């Protein structure tokens, strides 16, 4: 499925009911390392146009993997429930 390039975090009450827990909501998977690092994979950056063009294909390939699809959180490999063909594009999930 690709490499994990970013974690998507969310704030919600933890199991003790305290409101300040930061949890991993999902993973940004696939696409190029630089597309994520430079912010093109989630539309945080829109230029320079040359870099945007160079990373466009990789940014479109990045997918969002919700945490509830993950069955194994290993240190080297993360196992998911299905083949990931139906995962949404990261660009469609994040706010511009």
């Amino acid at each position, binding site marked *: 499925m690709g490499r994990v390039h*970013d974690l998507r975090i*969310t704030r919600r009450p933890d199991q003790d009911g305290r409101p300040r827990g930061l949890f991993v909501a999902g993973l940004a998977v696939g696409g190029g390392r630089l597309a*994520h690092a430079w912010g093109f994979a989630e539309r945080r950056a829109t230029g320079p146009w040359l870099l945007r063009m160079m990373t466009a294909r990789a940014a479109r390939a990045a997918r969002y993997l919700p945490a509830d699809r993950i069955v194994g959180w290993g240190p080297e490999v993360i196992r998911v429930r299905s083949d990931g063909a139906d995962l949404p594009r990261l660009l469609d999930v994040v706010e511009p």
Partner: protein
Amino acid sequence: MTDHESLRFTLLDQQLVDADDRPVGRVDDVLLELPDDGGPPKVVAVLTGAQALGERMGGLTGDVMASVASRMRSGEHRGEPVAIPASLIGDHADLVKLTVALDDLPQAAGLERWLAHHLVEGLPGAGDARD
């Protein structure tokens, strides 16, 4: 509309400030923990300081940085990166603002405190700055 955000862009490398908006450092790494119920990982602490950054960077430069920084810490936390519990994180929209003052974090900003005590306080006029 999403209810989640990027850890890379909203937490990592962001400026840490205390409850009085005084700089504490930067978020150089994040400590995650897997809960016992099998749920998703939880952010339990943010790590700050040269040791945390060096360990995250890796390579020869990072290893040297982490090694030197770990030897400069004293006390019971010697050899460990500076960890600030995630429960102390308030807002992290533009800055990562803690809910406590810097004085309540004796493990943080060690180098700055050392320099302030051993170097800056001896300078003429330093007393005026504290006031």
